[in-house]
């Protein structure tokens, strides 16, 4: 995101704090797709992810006056989204979650084999990216797709900066293991 857009996001937040609905529409239009995709990757349910967006932006409407501009608005939005997504996940049964995660990984190690037979490494890679644990998925998405820095990821996830770096490294290593299990060799590790 450019510095200009970040500054303009700050102005929108100031206007939202005064109850400006139009500013809210502009901010929503600018960020809702990324918020939705980040939420969807965490909760894996489109309906829940759509509900998340409304909750996230309603929080922005309510809390805009307290936003101090220490971080970019997009970073603040992703931090709220993450919090809401985890709350939504907690509402589901833990057992159900564990099963889902395990199934996802098993499925992925099967599906990529099929994909490799079709010589489609790209598709196998995508399947394995989907099969990562939520913890690994979110850090990969934040760094690669949302283009967040070490400091910003640390703020969104609420972990030290060094942990951000090591967690991403082990997420990548897990990704390599999944691909290897599916018969895909990429030269690393």
């Amino acid at each position, binding site marked *: 995101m450019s*510095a200009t857009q970040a500054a303009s996001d700050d102005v929108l937040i100031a*206007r939202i*704090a*005064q109850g400006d609905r139009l500013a809210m529409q502009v901010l929503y239009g600018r960020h809702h797709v990324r918020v939705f995709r980040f939420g969807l*990757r965490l909760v894996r349910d489109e309906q829940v992810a759509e509900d998340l967006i409304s909750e996230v932006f309603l929080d922005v409407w309510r809390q805009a006056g307290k936003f101090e501009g220490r971080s970019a608005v997009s970073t603040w939005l992703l931090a709220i989204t993450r919090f809401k997504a985890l709350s939504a996940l907690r509402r589901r049964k833990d057992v159900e979650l564990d099963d889902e995660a395990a199934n996802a990984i098993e499925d992925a190690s099967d599906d990529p084999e099929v994909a490799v037979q079709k010589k489609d490494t790209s598709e196998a890679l995508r399947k394995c990216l989907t099969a990562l644990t939520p913890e690994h998925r979110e850090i990969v998405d934040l*760094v690669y797709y949302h*283009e967040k*820095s070490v400091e910003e990821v640390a703020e969104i996830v609420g972990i030290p900066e060094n942990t951000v770096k090591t967690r991403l490294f082990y997420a990548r290593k897990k990704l390599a293991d999944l691909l290897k299990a599916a018969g895909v060799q990429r030269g690393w590790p």
Partner: protein
Amino acid sequence: MMAASKKMLEQEPSEIEMLLPFHAAGTLNARDARRVEEALARDPALARQYAVIREEYAETIDLNESLGAPSARAMQKLFVAIDAEPARQPWASLNFSARLSGFFAELSPRTLAWSASLGALALLLQAGVIGAVLVKNQNSTFQTASLSTNEPITRDLGGGAPPHALVRFAPDARIADITALLDHYQASIVDGAKGGMFRLQFGNRAMSKEEIAALMGRLQSEKIVSLAVPTP
């Protein structure tokens, strides 16, 4: 040379390896980006790993882009909820920078131009009065720089008042630029927008005349500052 990448899976990953994904995404600061570039240039194994990372990076973007977008229902739901919220008290919970942004946003360009002109006129008048007083008080004798024995020898411990200045910003200055300038100079607005001029205080310690003159010079050279004049 390949030590950084060789030890990656046997031991803890090296610092440079852990920075590679951020380098691919372009989110490293200049110093770290340079360190990574140098390491990539001398370590082929690290360069291979970087190629793999770029592949992951591209696929992660494709995967996310394939997720589509939410339906209009989400936005409708949001604004129904917003309409149900209690009415806002304007300015009630805004921080200083938000208030400053709001203040500028409410002024029309014509108002800003008029206030700036009036401010400049007031400043000229003030400069004239100060100049006249100085000329009047000046006597024709000269003074040496030697120690005066009539006054006690004291040392300024920095307890004096910090410097102030009247500043007029350029009409096209953006709020973000102004707040960045205030941060950069550790300045705060102590009196706002009278005749288009702001009275700023710089830091919290007294400065010598030379320091103040240098400060004014720096301020005056800022693109968004039209006028900066020291005041008591």
